[in-house]
């Protein structure tokens, strides 16, 4: 049979970001997919040569506008480890809370985009309407909707008052209730089940073979979650990884929906456990220049992120490397796209929750 090559991207209606797959088709079946990335490659890692380590955090935050907070946090945690800085307790809790709020934000964002990709514009609007409430919380507490810049090496820049925290919790729980309705649509609508169920199945063995991370791995039954390593105060939180076993597109949607509830619960626990009071210390000032190297792992909304930082005792770091979750999930995506129908390609690509600007830096 004749083979056709269909270029997918870089500008495609379902993709907010440029990614190119050359799809080699036989009839409607995809035989092979060859990725080309690099449309967003900025060369961000080399910026360490030009900006000092104290300022590099602001660049790192702009790896990606969706997990901006987590990138800033990862960078600061890495340098704190190198420089042996113990951050104040309240600052660590605040980071954890913000991190979980970003997770809810990111999952809502993705659920909306996913719904848009399979033709439910209404759901897209609902998810993004709820997401705006999260952005309001961010704006109130950090000053920014997307780029927050509250992380500093040694702590955080702003405090949230206890009353504010309580109000945020109420607001989030309320959001959780609203979200139940939307989640119900995702879970019970027959056309969604038809569109996503059984499509793009990644078995547990395959998931292990392609080393995927985050919700992608958890939807295939692997109970992996970097939060379980317990760093950054996650050891003080009760947390069970959200696991689904079906491994199809629908399972990946369900994992993310359940994680929204989980994050709200984590925030509740954190607000419960953190030390209360006004005017607590939020920052330990770093002294001197960093020297040494470290690998830092964090669980971002899309999965495990890994930072490698090497410092040589000068103001400029020697090497900064971020391996973002999408980078680890692209092999899985290529595996899934092979052998599927052309019409399912957008759904499969979207359910890995690709963040291309993370991948290419």
């Amino acid at each position, binding site marked *: 049979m004749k083979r056709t090559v269909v270029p997918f991207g870089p500008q495609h209606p379902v993709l907010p970001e440029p990614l190119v797959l050359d799809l080699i088709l036989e009839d409607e079946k995809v035989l092979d997919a060859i990725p080309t*990335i690099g449309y967003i490659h900025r060369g961000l890692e080399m910026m360490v040569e030009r900006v000092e380590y104290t300022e590099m955090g602001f660049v790192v935050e702009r790896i990606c506008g969706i997990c901006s907070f987590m990138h800033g946090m990862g960078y600061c945690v890495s340098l704190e480890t190198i420089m042996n800085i113990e951050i104040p307790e309240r600052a660590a809790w605040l980071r954890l809370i913000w991190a979980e709020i970003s997770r809810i934000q990111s999952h809502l964002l993705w659920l909306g985009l996913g719904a848009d990709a399979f033709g439910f514009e209404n759901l897209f609007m609902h998810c993004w309407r709820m997401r705006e409430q999260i952005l309001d919380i961010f704006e109130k507490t950090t000053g920014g909707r997307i780029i927050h810049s509250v992380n500093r090496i040694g702590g955080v820049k702003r405090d949230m008052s206890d009353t504010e925290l309580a109000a945020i919790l109420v607001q989030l729980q309320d959001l959780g209730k609203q979200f139940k309705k939307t989640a119900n649509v995702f879970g019970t609508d027959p056309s969604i089940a038809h569109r996503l169920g059984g499509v793009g199945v990644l078995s547990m063995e395959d998931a292990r073979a392609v080393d995927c991370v985050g919700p992608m791995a958890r939807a295939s039954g692997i109970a992996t979650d970097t939060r379980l*390593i317990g760093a950054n105060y996650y050891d003080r939180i009760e947390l069970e990884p959200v696991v689904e076993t079906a491994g199809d597109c629908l399972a990946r949607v369900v994992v993310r929906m359940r994680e929204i509830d989980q994050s709200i619960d984590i925030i509740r626990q954190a607000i419960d456990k953190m030390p209360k009071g006004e005017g607590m210390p939020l920052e330990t000032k770093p002294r001197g220049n960093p020297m040494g190297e470290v690998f830092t792992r964090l669980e971002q909304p899309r999965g495990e992120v*890994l930072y490698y930082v090497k410092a040589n005792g000068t103001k400029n770091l020697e090497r900064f490397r971020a391996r973002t979750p999408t980078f680890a999930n692209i*092999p899985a995506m290529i595996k899934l796209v092979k052998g599927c129908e052309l019409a399912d390609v957008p759904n499969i690509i979207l359910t890995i929750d690709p963040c291309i600007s993370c991948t290419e830096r």
Partner: protein
Amino acid sequence: MDSASFLARVGDYHKAGWRLALINVTTVIAAPAPPHGAAAEPAAPATDAPTADAAPASQAASVFEIAWAFAKDREFETIREQITVGDAVPSISEFFGAAFLYENEIRELFGINVTGIGLDLQGQLYKTVTKVPFSHQAIKARLAATAAAAAAASAASAAAAEKKA
């Protein structure tokens, strides 16, 4: 580096169920001489200074440090190797299918010759303006340019201050 024993070690990680977390390369550049007035260490005795300085600097000038990082639940381990420019590195795609992205990236950004990549993208992954942006020459050129720009800026501000005065 010894390819056979390296691949055997990688194979052991694979068998034990580890996950490939990262392949990272660091271009080792000898630290530039500290600007005068800011020398951190007391000056070494004059007699052995030239040899002690020159040897590691020239050696380090052509070295890449590669780390293969593996993760399994809470554990995290790395295999590290140092290679000199021009050395070939074997691909680990046969054990970890996901390695191809890292390896293509290394070849494009660092110019390291990785042999036997599972899915060879022929240098089309990033297509950067500066070819091989993390090679020793490229980094040194950028560092020199930054230093020159800083010097020019400080000279200009000094001149401006003089004018004012």
